[in-house]
């Protein structure tokens, strides 16, 4: 199942000489292109990354520029090509493996969890695996139960890998080069509804740090903690809350493993209230981990219990109204905050 919303090449309408307007999709493509131009060890491998132009058109044009040796279309063999990414990384290359979507990564789960994540430790530090795996994640496009998972929280449970969730144009452009510099396996989750968002990017923008969360919006009364596709929802909720006189701070986790406790706890110590927003199912979500860490690190700072706004615990249904109802919504976040803030008595 696939969606080439647009196969356009990067538009560089310069807003100001220093700034470039581009989509999230183009930012990821630029990141891959720049890395492949800089380092001959970098190559892209996955289903339909070449001739098709990438399921989400991310790799459109790269085959023409770099050729089939470095932009490798694979058969439908998730376990094998992810495992080959491990081997290629061990062999001195810097593979970027694209698993079309997280839904299909289940077929490669063994290679990631028992393979990539354990190698360095099992070998007593001899063999690190500089592998980057990109996948699209998330719901919201009426793709139903088998194509709407948000399983990045699963992978964030596994020691030995780093898990990233770029939610902005800057991070879409900057996380990949940093991931390629990481000597260990890095998973990058790109929310499928973000590819079309547009934004401004500094002309020379490049690598960004991949160890810290970010405060996307300052606030006093409550901390809204989100990542990936939910960041926009959290910001929208913060804006609505503003109107009703509640000042919400918005934290973008960015790095799902290792979690940046400092940024999370600093915000909660300031606002004394937190709502964690996660598109995954509530039970066993990453939101639970964040809530537990706030419990452990800032319990005595809390004016109210940390709340979670997650997806309903149901395989995501096809019809738009049911799907939207199953996912975290701005209204739900706003209501949750209003219930917990003194303002909304």
């Amino acid at each position, binding site marked *: *199942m*696939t*969606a*080439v*919303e647009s*196969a356009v090449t990067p538009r560089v309408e310069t807003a100001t000489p220093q700034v470039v307007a581009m989509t999230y999709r183009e930012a990821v493509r630029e990141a891959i292109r720049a890395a492949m131009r800089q380092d001959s060890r970098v190559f892209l491998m996955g*289903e*339909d990354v*070449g*001739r*098709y*132009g990438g*399921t989400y058109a991310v790799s459109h044009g790269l085959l023409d520029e770099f050729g089939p040796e470095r932009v490798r*279309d694979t*058969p*439908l*063999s*998730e*376990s*094998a090509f992810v495992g080959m990414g491990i081997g290629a990384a061990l062999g001195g290359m810097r593979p970027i493996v694209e698993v079309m979507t997280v*839904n*299909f990564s289940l*077929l490669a789960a063994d290679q990631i969890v028992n393979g990539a994540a354990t190698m360095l430790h099992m070998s007593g530090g001899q063999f690190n695996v500089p592998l980057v795996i990109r996948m699209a994640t998330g719901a919201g*496009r*009426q*793709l*139903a*139960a*088998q*194509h709407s998972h948000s399983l990045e929280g699963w992978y964030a449970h596994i020691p030995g890998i780093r898990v990233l969730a770029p939610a902005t144009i800057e991070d879409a452009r900057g996380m990949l080069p940093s991931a390629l510099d990481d000597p260990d396996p890095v998973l990058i989750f790109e929310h499928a509804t973000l590819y079309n968002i547009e934004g401004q990017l500094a002309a020379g923008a490049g690598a960004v740090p991949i160890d810290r969360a970010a405060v996307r919006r300052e606030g006093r009364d409550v901390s809204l903690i989100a990542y990936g596709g939910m960041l926009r929802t959290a910001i929208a909720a913060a804006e609505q809350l503003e109107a009703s006189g509640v000042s919400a701070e918005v934290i973008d986790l960015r790095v799902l493993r290792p979690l940046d406790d400092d940024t999370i706890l600093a915000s909660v110590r300031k606002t004394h209230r937190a709502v964690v927003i996660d598109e995954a199912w509530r*039970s066993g979500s990453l939101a639970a981990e964040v809530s537990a860490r706030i419990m452990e690190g800032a319990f005595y700072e809390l004016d109210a219990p940390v709340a979670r706004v997650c997806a*309903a*615990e*149901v*395989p995501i*249904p*096809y*019809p*738009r*109204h*049911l799907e939207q*109802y*199953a996912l975290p919504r701005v209204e739900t976040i706003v209501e949750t905050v209003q219930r917990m803030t003194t303002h909304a008595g």
Partner: protein
Amino acid sequence: MSANEHDLALLEAMIRIRRFEERCADLYKEEKIRGFLHLYIGEEAIAVGVMQALTPADAVVSTYREHGHALARGIDMNRVMAEMYGKATGTSGGRGGSMHLFDAPSRFYGGTAIVGEQLPMAAGLALADKMQGRPVVTACFFGDGAVAEGEFHETMNLAALWRLPVLFCCENNRYAMGTAIERAQSETDLALKAAAYRMPAWPVDGMDVKAVDSAARRAAESIRAGEGPHFIEFRTYRFRAHSMFDPELYRSKDEVEQWRRRDPILLFSERLRRESALDDTALEAIEKRVAAEIEAAVAFAEASEWEPVESLTRHVTTLAAP
């Protein structure tokens, strides 16, 4: 029914699927159908031909490109169309959509969106039939792309090892999304690959509904006779894009044109005309019946209700939701 009537039924069944999907493509542009939509146009002879070999007791397992299989299996077009819309009256109560058509009465087990995932399930259905002594066949449809998946290998081996009554119907349309079979398979003769598991396997022209029909009957008979699984590679072609999003950068208009000359509906109606088993009036009658049925299906889908949001968590578990 007479041989001639049978032939006309085959033709009508193919036209019915073709027109249904052409309408679906329009409805997609009208945003009545959303999500993914994978058209079967060009491959109709396979679904129609294979279903001739099945009885109501047999089971069918398919992919996300399954509208043709569902209609050929005899599932009410109204309910199929309602499912495309996501209405409560659909085959799956609207929850599944285009990729997840299910129908218990006709033993139609979907409608899977994970390539290759349905193969083990099909073998399991066959195992259950075998263990319960039911002389039935499970027909499992999948594409050439699925052949590269590990689950294909594991299932072929187990089905052959345990001699399970499965009819493996490989719809080789030469592409997995944008990846041509030559770029996906070290051995592109898929029947040869299947034979390596020690099961009867042969290629059939998937554009010739009669060839499909007789091959499927031959295989089904042999399976019912306890000869274990059979594999048929149906050689066909997808006339439309992989899905509604596909810009088709990976193949030439010319290649598509070549194949369109082998359109199964075109070939078969020409043949029937040659045999003067078909004339314009007969064809018009078919088109009229089909058009009327599709109109009714659209009207049914339009008039149908949405599942209320209150029942979102229904069917997560049979008993109380977790």
